[in-house]
């Protein structure tokens, strides 16, 4: 019960109150002349330097859920869960040259969201709407997952009642506070809190990887314990290395996840908030420090095996909540005051990305739905106000999902989220590199990729949770008629089909001489940097669209 965890609860609460205070004070940090502008509320004034961006983007991409779920994956399945390391290694060199182009064109034209860019590039409000809706739908369950991260910690501290309401009261309180300071301070709040979050996480992990192995007999013993567990288990695809059947899945999941991450609106928000191209480039060099951290965190899953951690029961009888293995490991191995710090690190780790995600989703709604379809002549101050209110709605939605649905459901949604956000790759990522694609073909590609992805996910059962559909992202190739037990990541197949349809569709539409949309961007927009005379130009999307060059 919770009385046994008194020290942990006190320390957790103190740190939580501290960062909440910071969240409110953040409104005055690097104080702008006018917070009533979407650039200020939603992008922190587009003025963050290398250090702030490093903490902000790091705090944004490596979420509490990652810290809880990746080790849980290694705990359950072994080597397959380690895909998170190659995924976050290949990501930065891959987007190195693309993100700086996004930054430049966004600054020249005042774009706040990826859908703004797509609208300007391809002159298609429909395509922009698809990108915006895809972004919002993919982000919502991601926010809900952050709550699951906090919940795993609260559960370990015994702060869970019997009724649904009692179980969720602490989370509701946490989210009300989060919603209030995000409303007031915008992106400045998570940027400031990210310093505390990352410092705590680094501290906890460095202590964990030195202290826990010394108690468990060293790294060799930890890997041996994991090996022994997987050898004994009847599951065919677990083990501390891969087998012939899951290597393709490992490779495609790492690649697909890497392609997807910077398509998420919240990642782009972090990038656009930086003050120049150099900041982004330096961050692409320095952000892999978090990958090292993530790899070490992943191995906590094996430490939990060696320490014989038994996960707490799940929401429905007979299931276990594997997300509790890391909090339980901390609870079991650390003195209670340090476990309190570790729990606070995870809890605060959830707040930073949840704030950025809700801001990103709110910006998408404001710029690409409200402004496009409801109020064309909205002023920047009205945009900021709509975004602030929308960010509240988004958070309330995430809390309701957690309260009324099986948490497993939001994990499934997150899985789907990765697959669907990938379908914006041709319009957003390829669109940054080339104007070759036809807007109609991009829409057709989106429809094809999305339908195929959904169908494939629907086909996947999950033996562990006894569900017939949406049981994972590893699609058996035998379903396509291949005589093999190999599996492949759904997202990769869906996005390949998407690109293929977009290419063929472009050739057909060009041959049929269907007109392209107007491109309001020019080649040199993509290389503009801070101090460019046109960067401060009035936003092209305000009022009527800029005439074509």
């Amino acid at each position, binding site marked *: 019960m919770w009385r046994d965890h008194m020290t942990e609860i006190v320390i957790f609460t103190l740190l939580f109150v501290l960062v909440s205070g910071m969240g409110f004070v953040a409104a005055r940090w690097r104080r702008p002349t006018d917070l009533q502008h979407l650039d200020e509320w939603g992008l922190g004034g587009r003025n963050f330097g290398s250090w702030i961006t490093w903490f902000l983007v790091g705090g944004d991409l490596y979420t509490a859920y990652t810290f809880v779920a990746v080790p849980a994956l290694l705990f359950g399945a072994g080597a397959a869960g380690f895909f998170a390391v190659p995924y976050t290694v*290949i990501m930065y060199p891959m987007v190195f040259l693309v993100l700086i*182009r996004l930054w430049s064109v966004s600054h020249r034209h005042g774009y706040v969201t990826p859908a703004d860019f797509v609208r300007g590039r391809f002159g298609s409000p429909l395509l922009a709407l698809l990108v915006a809706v895809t972004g919002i739908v993919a982000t919502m369950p991601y926010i809900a997952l952050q709550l699951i991260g906090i919940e795993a910690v609260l559960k370990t501290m015994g702060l869970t009642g019997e009724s649904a309401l009692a179980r969720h009261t602490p989370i509701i309180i946490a989210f009300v506070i989060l919603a209030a300071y995000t409303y007031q301070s915008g992106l400045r709040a998570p940027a400031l809190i990210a310093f505390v979050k990352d410092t705590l996480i680094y501290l906890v992990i460095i202590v964990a990887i030195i202290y826990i192995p010394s108690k468990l007999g060293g790294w060799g013993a930890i890997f041996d314990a994991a090996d022994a567990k997987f050898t004994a288990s009847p599951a065919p695809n677990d083990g501390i290395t891969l087998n012939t059947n899951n290597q393709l899945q490992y*490779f495609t999941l790492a690649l697909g996840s890497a392609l997807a991450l910077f398509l998420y609106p919240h990642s782009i928000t972090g990038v656009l908030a930086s003050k120049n191209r150099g900041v982004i480039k330096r961050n692409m*060099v320095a952000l892999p420090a978090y990958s*090292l951290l993530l*790899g070490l965190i992943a191995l906590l899953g094996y430490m939990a095996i060696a320490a014989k951690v038994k996960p707490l029961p799940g929401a429905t009888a007979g299931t276990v909540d594997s997300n509790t293995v890391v909090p339980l490991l901390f609870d079991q191995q650390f003195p209670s005051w340090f476990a309190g710090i570790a729990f606070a690190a995870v809890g605060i780790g959830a707040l930073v990305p949840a704030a950025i995600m809700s801001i990103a989703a709110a910006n998408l709604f404001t710029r690409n739905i409200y402004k496009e379809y409801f109020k064309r002549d909205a002023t920047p101050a009205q945009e900021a106000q709509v975004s602030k209110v929308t960010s509240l709605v988004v958070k309330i939605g995430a809390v309701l999902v957690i309260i009324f649905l099986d948490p497993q459901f939001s994990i499934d949604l997150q899985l789907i989220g990765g697959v669907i956000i990938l379908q914006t790759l041709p319009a957003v990522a390829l669109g940054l590199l080339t104007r070759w694609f036809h807007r109609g073909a991009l829409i057709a590609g989106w429809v094809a990729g999305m339908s195929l992805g959904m169908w494939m996910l629907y086909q996947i059962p999950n033996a562990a949770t006894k569900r017939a559909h949406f049981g994972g992202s590893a699609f058996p190739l035998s379903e396509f008629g291949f005589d093999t037990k190999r599996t492949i990541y759904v997202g990769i197949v869906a996005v390949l089909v998407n690109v293929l349809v977009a290419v063929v569709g472009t050739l057909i539409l060009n041959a049929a001489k269907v007109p392209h949309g107007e491109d309001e961007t020019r080649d040199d927009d993509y*290389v503009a940097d801070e101090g460019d005379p046109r960067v401060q130009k009035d936003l092209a999307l305000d009022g009527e669209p800029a005439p*074509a060059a």
Partner: protein
Amino acid sequence: MTNPPPVRRSDSSPWNWLLIVPVVVPLLTFLYNSEEPRLFGFPFFYWLQFAFIALGVGTTTFVYRMTRPRTAAASATDAPSKGADDVA
């Protein structure tokens, strides 16, 4: 709309091709899918993938430094970065 004279700037550089290396190598599972040899108790599978982080950081750092915009004097000559980088 009358365009100001286009600024001759470009991100292209032959050094950028190096970025392919840290994207491709960590995906080649056959390179590291083995338990032996161990290093400090870590199976090969784990420590080699940790080493790829260094490969990624090293390569991006190198490309960043080689393609960094030159000083004001160099950019004033408007030299395309390609030729200059080949010498550097």
